[in-house]
């Protein structure tokens, strides 16, 4: 049990490339923190720095009140689940889980008890004698988790652990990881590029871009109040519609915004209808594409008003209200559903 604190952590590679540009972060004891961002944003590097697999150029990595910058990975009391699982191919499942414990000099009986306990939790008791090659992807995933659990670590580190699984299994394992972490009450740091995974797993969501933290917060808070246009576009599927404020047409609030301001509105906050609520947004659209996904549909349209001609807009509508292709419709959003950002991409005070 431990909290994880990063204080202005930076990473510069030998070639001068700055991968992490000063990240400060505090994950409370027992919390599930998800680092999310596009590939190359530094989220994996940051995780590996917590694990001790990458050196820290400057700043402090603190696990449970102990600065671990110069501590070997094995001595940090962490356990890591890798994207490709990194199971030892020549060892049985049992030995894969027991290996780390043996290296730490635990008694044989204790090792056996821990492995069986973990195997029971993960329902892989029947597989203990098998080699990784004889396991399915989901089973390997479980063994990798088991290897992490048996160590009784202070912190679990997950590096995109579900990205090698098929969609269905991914959702099932996602739920299981969350349940497991709640049950063990172990602090977890989880890296993913999948914003849905991030939203569903996190207690604390950290959105990263270009080696920097864009926003830290509870998932819903991040969703409802994205701090930057990057977060607004990254979190949520389909992404938030963003357009220059000037395109929103002449109305009271838009004129008072600073130059270069951006207006954002989520697809589900747009309504089909002619009349804009007072102070709201109204956009005439030509329907260009429609995606039916069952209970609802996503309408892809181009704005046909003079000010914003050519802007792409995505609208979520109920399945039975889906407009036909090529028709002209109007969508509206009330003022409180609009997100306003300055020219620098930062959220303007509401």
């Amino acid at each position, binding site marked *: 049990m431990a909290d994880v604190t990063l204080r202005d952590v930076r990473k510069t590679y030998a070639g001068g490339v700055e991968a992490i540009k000063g990240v400060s972060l505090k994950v409370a004891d027992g919390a599930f923190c998800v680092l999310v961002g596009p590939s190359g944003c530094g989220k994996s590097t940051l995780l590996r720095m917590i*694990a001790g697999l990458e050196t820290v150029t400057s700043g402090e990595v603190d696990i449970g009140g102990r600065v671990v910058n110069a501590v070997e990975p*094995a001595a940090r009391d962490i356990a890591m689940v890798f994207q*490709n699982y990194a199971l030892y191919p020549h060892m049985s499942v049992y030995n894969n889980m027991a290996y780390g414990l043996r290296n730490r000099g635990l008694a044989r009986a204790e090792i056996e008890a821990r492995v069986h306990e973990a195997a029971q939790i993960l329902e892989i008791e029947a597989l203990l004698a098998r080699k990784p090659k004889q396991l399915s992807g989901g089973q390997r995933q479980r063994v990798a988790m088991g290897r992490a659990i048996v160590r009784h670590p202070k912190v679990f580190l997950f590096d995109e652990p579900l990205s090698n699984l098929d969609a269905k299994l991914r959702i099932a394992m996602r739920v299981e990881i969350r349940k497991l972490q709640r049950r063990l009450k172990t602090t977890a740091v989880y890296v993913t590029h999948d914003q849905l995974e991030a939203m569903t797993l996190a207690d604390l969501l950290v959105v990263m871009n270009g080696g920097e933290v864009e926003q830290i917060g509870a998932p819903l808070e991040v969703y409802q109040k994205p701090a930057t246009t990057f977060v607004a576009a990254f979190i949520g599927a389909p992404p938030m519609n963003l357009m220059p404020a000037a395109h929103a047409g002449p109305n009271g609030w838009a004129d008072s915004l600073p130059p270069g301001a951006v207006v954002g509105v989520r697809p589900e906050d747009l309504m089909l209808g002619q009349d804009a609520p007072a102070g709201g947004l109204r956009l005439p659209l030509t329907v260009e594409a429609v995606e039916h996904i069952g209970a609802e549909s996503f309408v892809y349209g181009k704005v046909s008003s003079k000010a914003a001609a050519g802007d792409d807009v995505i609208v979520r509508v109920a399945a039975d209200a889906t407009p036909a292709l090529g028709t002209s419709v109007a969508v509206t959003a009330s003022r409180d559903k609009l997100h306003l950002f300055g020219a620098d991409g930062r959220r303007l005070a509401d």
Partner: protein
Amino acid sequence: MVERRRFGNLIPHLILWVGIALVAFPVYLAFVASTQDNAAIANGQMSLLPGDLFFETYYKTLFVGTSGSTREPVGTMLFNSFVMAMAIAVGKIAISILSAYAIVYFRFRFRMAVFWLIFITLMLPVEVRIYPTYKIAADLNLLDSYSGLTLPLIASATATLLFRQFFMTVPDELLEASRIDGAGPVRFFKDTLLPLSRTNIAALFVILFIYGWNQYLWPLLITTRDDMQTIQIGIRKMITTSDALTEWPVVMATAVLAMLPPVAVVVVMQKLFVRGLVETEK
């Protein structure tokens, strides 16, 4: 090509049989000659069927030796050759797997320079550096000794290169998982890398054993004493006789005996050997 035609396979099979006959006939001839009377062979009246002197000839070959040219029994030569081939195979594998481990997994100064130095030795086989190597061996008093027979042939780039290529295909995450599991460099090598290299080691062992077994030039130079000579040298010495008749049955028996250990190694290691060549177990 699942379709079975009665005569469709005839021609390929015929060609294969001719090939087998071409390879196998000399071996068969050697065996037949080793079971017959020397006089019959010398007269050119050798039968193509095995004679009745099998036990007599092989006993003489193994434990007594020829009466003329080399007085050493072939048993000793077999032992010398076996020691030499084993030492070369084991020594080369041990040295090259360790140096490949260092080159792939450790960052040290002049790492690439070291790698290229090892790599360049590929271009300098024993034959090219024979004089300096002999000089060094002689200065170190290695003549007529097992160390002299084996040490100069052990330092090998081929095997280092092969292990390096293999290590580079081992995912980095395995090393990282080992580090988190508390395994240091020695444990990682022993517990993970060595078991993963098993098939590679087996394949190399077969190749290197045969390489060592077939050495001719180096043992010829470095050994002068009869009881240190290898079987390859022994055969040659048996053939050149100054005044007596070459004892062909003994020569042929020696040749047959010289073939057996490499064959045995291949047969025993075949499964691993093939796997080592075609698949990487990961």
